[in-house]
């Protein structure tokens, strides 16, 4: 088999893993509710009482929803499966480490994209308009891939307790939300905050969403979208390399 057909073959196997992940870990009432409620309440806690236009409010909510849903479950799949010994089952199957990770990532991407419809619908119902739907769609898909690959990095420590990984990922996720122009457009941030925001991939997605909904956008989509793609590739490479090292220690 050529390298190309090996990749294709393994990618097909990763779809089976993604399907399993969606059924076992995602399509559950509490997970879906958590995916919608968590970003909504966190967002409302910051916006109630402040006079903000819809084209600034909805992109922030969308950014939070995609970020939290795409990073919610995939970091804990590896420790869950370590605990249940099902990771050992996967490891004995003809699948590579990256195949397992791709499956986990694809499930997370699907979940992130599906949940993104909630804030978009909320925006449309409350009067927001989408000026560039295709750019927004590309942004949502890229962001879901980017945040999912980031979530895979969170799960690399070979812990078998999901709580340990949850704690570690929360330590990174929450500060990242506050520095990513979710609650205030990047254009309105002071220079030092703009500098910090430029290091977060969430910033670029929120900026794409703001642009598509007619809000003030500091970074144009022509910069944000390629950057999201580049960061996704870097995160994916890091995740695969780290998991290759730590997976044998889980088994």
């Amino acid at each position, binding site marked *: *088999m050529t390298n190309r057909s090996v990749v294709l073959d393994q990618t097909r196997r990763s779809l089976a893993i993604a399907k399993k992940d969606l059924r*076992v870990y995602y399509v559950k009432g509490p997970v879906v509710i958590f995916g919608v409620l968590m970003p909504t309440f966190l967002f409302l806690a910051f916006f109630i009482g402040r006079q903000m236009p819809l084209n600034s409010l909805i992109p922030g909510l969308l950014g939070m929803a995609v970020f939290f849903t795409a990073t919610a479950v995939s970091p804990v799949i590896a420790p869950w499966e370590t605990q249940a010994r*099902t990771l050992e089952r996967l490891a*004995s*199957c*003809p699948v590579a*480490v990256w195949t397992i990770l791709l499956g986990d990532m694809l499930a997370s991407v699907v979940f992130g994209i599906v949940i993104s419809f909630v804030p978009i619908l909320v925006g449309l119902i409350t009067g927001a308009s989408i000026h560039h739907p295709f750019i927004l769609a590309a942004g949502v898909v890229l962001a879901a891939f980017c945040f999912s690959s980031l979530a895979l990095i969170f799960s690399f420590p070979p812990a078998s307790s999901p709580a340990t990984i949850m704690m570690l990922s929360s330590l990174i996720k929450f500060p990242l939300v506050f520095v990513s122009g979710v609650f205030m457009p990047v254009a309105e941030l002071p220079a030092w905050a703009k500098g910090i925001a430029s290091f977060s991939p969430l910033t670029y997605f929120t900026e794409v969403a703001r642009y598509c909904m007619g809000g003030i956008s500091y970074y144009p989509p022509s910069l944000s979208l390629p950057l999201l793609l580049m960061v996704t590739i870097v995160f994916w490479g890091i995740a695969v390399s780290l998991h290759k090292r730590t997976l*044998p220690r889980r088994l």
Partner: protein
Amino acid sequence: MEKGVALSPISTGRTLENRSAITVEGLTKYYGNLLAVDHVGFNVNNGELFGFLGPNGAGKTTTVRILTGIIHAEGGTGLVMGYPAGSLPAKQLSGVVPEQANAYVDLSAWDNLILMAELYRVRLSEARFRAEALLQKVGLYEKKDNLVKTFSLGMRKRLIICLALVSEPHVLFLDEPTSGLDVQSTRLIREMLRKLRKEGKTIFLTTHNMDEASELCDRVAIINHGKLVAIDTPERLRIGAGRFHVVEIGFERPVAPEILSQLQNVDKVEGTGNKIRIYTENPCGLVASVVDFTRSHSLTMVNLNIQTPSLEEAFVRLTQEVSHDK
């Protein structure tokens, strides 16, 4: 776990006949400072049911986990159907039944089987056909849509055998498949193994159960403290390792054991009254001596039974020898 190249079961491009199914040379594995597997080497022939015996912590499960690609060895080589153990082609040709039943408990038995079929790239129509046949064979078809979390241990073990077989592997690795099971499940699994053996599958079976090994296996290897201490057919191991045969004799009237201990070829005599147990290295010679003795003392034998050493005795002696050597 990622070595070699991926391979679909129909495009191996190699002849799978006429060669060892499993070849192991100098396999070595450390856990920290503990030498868990110490330069182990053996061959398993195609279509052979090979038993791998050893006390707890001897290195059985570690060896299986290396051969199935779950963990890596520090030294030596392992080949499965000619491919490096742990490589994708080797895994494609293997089925694994681990000691702990590890199906997805939040999926139904059917969905677990379809998932495994998809991971081995079995066509969906074929996967459905095989899943149905396997579940019927192990008596789980009626419960195919039930979540695995509702299954008993025996049902879960039967299911994981089905999971290992859905890809129709050339080599089947089973780690203690009947441990902790009730009589019915144990008999069902043993019967399945016999049938698979007849169908020509190569089976690598680790077990604690000497009767199971003796009854099922073509050859067995005994491992202790990470070292291979013996490898042969159960019959030869019994005969070779068990120095003493036991000859049980029943007489019509009581005979003093002290008198019998004077006979040729007797190593030890036990028992009182009518029933005597004599330990000997030469059962034929002993029987001749006893027959002469009964004639000369006008006795009548009502029972004569020669017991060859069991595999369990051979196992205990071989594993104890290594322990003492250490």
